[in-house]
């Protein structure tokens, strides 16, 4: 049960949040132009890193806002929290 520092509400317990998987996978602007393989890459392929990972989280039982975090999946340490649309901090 880690603590997440929601950029809108402050530090809250993990149980208030919902994980949304890997961050920075943008929905293609023109899906119709993509081959099956390219579409599948967007649709299915996720890195699932052991180590530092960029993730989407939603403060589902709070402000309902989506945001990104940088988390080390091996020890759950959260390195950074930033709003949607903001540039990710460099590793």
């Amino acid at each position, binding site marked *: 049960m*880690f603590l997440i520092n929601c950029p809108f509400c402050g530090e809250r317990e993990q149980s208030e949040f*919902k994980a949304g998987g890997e961050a920075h996978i943008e929905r293609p602007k023109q899906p*119709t132009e993509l081959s099956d393989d390219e*579409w599948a890459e967007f649709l299915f392929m996720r890195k699932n890193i052991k180590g530092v990972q960029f993730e989407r989280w939603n403060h589902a039982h709070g402000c309902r806002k989506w945001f990104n975090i940088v988390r080390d999946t091996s020890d*759950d340490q959260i390195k950074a929290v930033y709003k*949607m649309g903001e540039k990710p901090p460099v590793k």
Partner: protein
Amino acid sequence: MSKNLRFKSSKLVDETYRISFKFNNKTYYGYKGDTLASALLANDVHLVGRSFKYHRPRGIMTAGSEEPNAIIQLHDNTSRTEPNVRATEIEIYEGLVASSQNCWPSVNFDIGGINNILSPILPAGFYYKTFMWPKSFWEKYEYFIRKSAGLGKSPKEADPDIYEHKYIHCDVLIIGAGISGIIAAKMSAKNGLKTLLVDEKSFLGGSTIYDNSKFSKINNQITSSWLEKEINEISKLENLEIKTRTSVAAFHGYNFLLARENLTDHLPITQRENKIRHRLLKIRAQKVICATGAIERPLIFDNNDRPGILLSSAMKKYIDLYGVACGENNILFTNNDTAYETAMSMVQRGIKINAIIDNREEIDSKLSYEVEKNNIKIFKGYTVVDTYGYKRINGLSIMELSKDGQKVIGKKIKLSCDSLGVSGGWTPAVHLFTQSGGKLKFREDDQVFIPNKYPSDQLSIGSCNGDFSLEEITTNTILSVKKFLNINIIDYKTFEIITGMNKSKRNIWLLPSDKILGKTKSFVDYQNDATAKDIKLALREGFRSIEHVKRYTTTGMGTDQGKLGNMHALGIISETAGTKMGEHGTTTFRPPYTPLTFGTIVGRNVGKFFDIVRRTPIHDWHVANNAKFENVSQWKRAWYYPKANENMYQAVQRESKAARDCAGILDASTLGKIDIQGTDASEFLNRVYTNAWSKLAIGKCRYGLMLNEDGMVYDDGVTTRLDENHYIMTTTTGGAANVLGKLEDYLQTEWPELDVYLSSVTDHYATICVCGPHSKKIVSKVIPDLDFSDEKFPHMSFKNTKIGQIKCRVMRISFTGEQSYEINIQSNYGKSVWEKCMEAGKDFNITPYGTETMHLLRAEKGFIIVGQDTDATMTPIDLQMDWIVSKKKYDFIGKRSLYRSDTIKDDRKQLVGLLTENPKEVLEEGAQIVADIKKSPIEMLGHVTSSYYSPNLNKSIALGVVKGGKKMLGQKLIIPMENKNINVTVADPVFLDKEGERLSAKL
């Protein structure tokens, strides 16, 4: 035969307060303050249970939560009965009833004891190896294996006790109130930090509280007296909260810990009424200090498991704390100085010590000299090679150890005893530290794992950090706590420590024997009966990883998680494999540290508080009118309304017929409602639904299908355009929260440029759906001011109107295929409007119907239910709903996936109607659909998703998904059931009124 082994003036026991209790149907007496174990020992009862595999007699081994053997069934044959309770932890109370486990017919005569004789043919992995073949015999074996599996009996009735959860936030949590924990607590609290000190015992002070020999002194006071004064002082500190009988179960990341506070288990049953039994504490601490102490190691030699064999520290504790001697003729067996402390306690009380066997050839401590002075024979450089006595040790034999400790030499000497105390040194209790993600390192000097890398803001102090001597504990605790808490005020100046012990130890993981290993039973894991021989066998058979050896031999897999023997298992593995200790690491320590009852885990979330229940504003009416309810997500929905003696089938047939012949009324308040506003609302709907929305006129409704990005149907519902930039979307009852979450996700992350705002208004409106040929007449009576003519108010449109002074929205939409009106009104008026409709419909036989009838009516029309006829593998094309997928729109969620190579295949499962050859035969939902039953294996083509007897069509109808079903219209298929095969014909999924004529009333 019962001897009295009780001494006067012990620390914990109140001799003026006698308590009677029953163990194995016999009445015994103990005193207030006793544990069940100490009270049994005082009555000279050592034999308390049988071991798991060989059913060997077992006695009390320890005096704490690490106990592997003395696990008992508490409160026999009552709703409070509980298995695997450690006799060493449970405090006795008047009327306590307990019994031995894992034995039949009794602990004294146990038929399963035959396994002990059969043990040569029951090696590690016996069950895996033996019961694998012949394969068909498994069912026969299983019966017997299941019978012998498991320890104790689980309760058969509901738990009558009350449990609760509590959150605690503190600056510093200190786990363990031994000497280091007490020092840390005082330092922390005196510096203004909000401190919580917890200990699993009923008293404070850990093992130091009975460190009462004259050889152990702090600042010229006997150590235990010094500590008592400290405890007295800290109990007055304002910033310090102390919780005893509180065991930390789990140490998670970010300093989140779970602890069980035991509030009533020590009270007589009559005093527990209406009291909370356990409290699960959810602790979030800024800083955590582990002062969890150390657990004494046993020694691994042949027959080291007989009743009467205890850890030497446990013997000392029973003497000093409870005033109980474990025997009248004792022997101690050790590889370090700890046992000499026990010896001194015995000497002080006049308890006979027959001999001390010491692995070490040289002993050089004040304490050992003092023991020798008392004319106690010490066998130096010796080891125990065997023990005797079946239900109680009555003797042992010893031999001299060779120089390298690998062999025994010389002559065997036999000694008699009725109790043996063993000490193999100490293992730091690092369980909680490693649970939190901490990494250990191995210290070669004394062969212990100690904390190395802390994963969070925490510290380990005292013997759990590998500091075993009083000097190390006091000095290091003060230094490290000062730094860790960053504090200045320190009460402690210098410590003058006097101790009679030194640190020498001769560590031999598996002691040698004069017998070959195969003939010995040297237990490593007492509870699961894993021996040194088993571990070596596992290595011979090729297991190398400690985690694999653990599972193969079951070492450390009991309810005690191998707190005593795991280190020896590691030691034996590394010795045998020729690797270095520490290279293998340890097995994973998992929560809980000691077992928790389910009651503690669920707390108050039982009975009607098990889950959240949502009721519609009309719920009370349904109850008053005899509705049966169905759970739909968290909602209670009226399922059907049986009259008099009707069963469900009869009620549903009647309701269904009435809805089509006259009028039906349904509470649809549970459907999800999302209010959508903003200048880009139309564009947003275009992107999230498969069909086009831009041209929907204000005041019109449209059915929409929502896909996932993978092209599979996710949700459906009718959305109404209330205004230029204002829509109201309905979703399925169960999907409401997820749909809102998904839409928010797209809005916030993919399309932040869209000007759209979403609000859930599900609970704000009651929705009353009146349908059937008389529906128009009924709603006209309820809302006389509104023009209900087909011209002014056609199908798929909506009106803002009023009932009296109350604004409401009326939609003319239909999920039944009948002419149908949905009145949406502020929730608190829901019930009164429903009653108005009932009143207005009285002359038209208005019939309330529930979800079951709703399902039947929509199935007649071939309307899908997301989640019943779909399962996240169905595209709209599979559902024969091509008409709703816009060809013109450039993009919408899931569009690209609709022409992936997999989604365009012809032989996907597709939704079809199914008609049985015998129209009275109703199919079972979930039944398999096949074409050819002669071919083996039979190819499964699909399954039945919805099935009913239609009272309006007078025949059985069903929907199902079938591979390539779209092209099978008219084809015969087979539903194979247990006793028969049912012939069906593939049909159009729309069974009734394909033209939609019923949407406008003819009556």
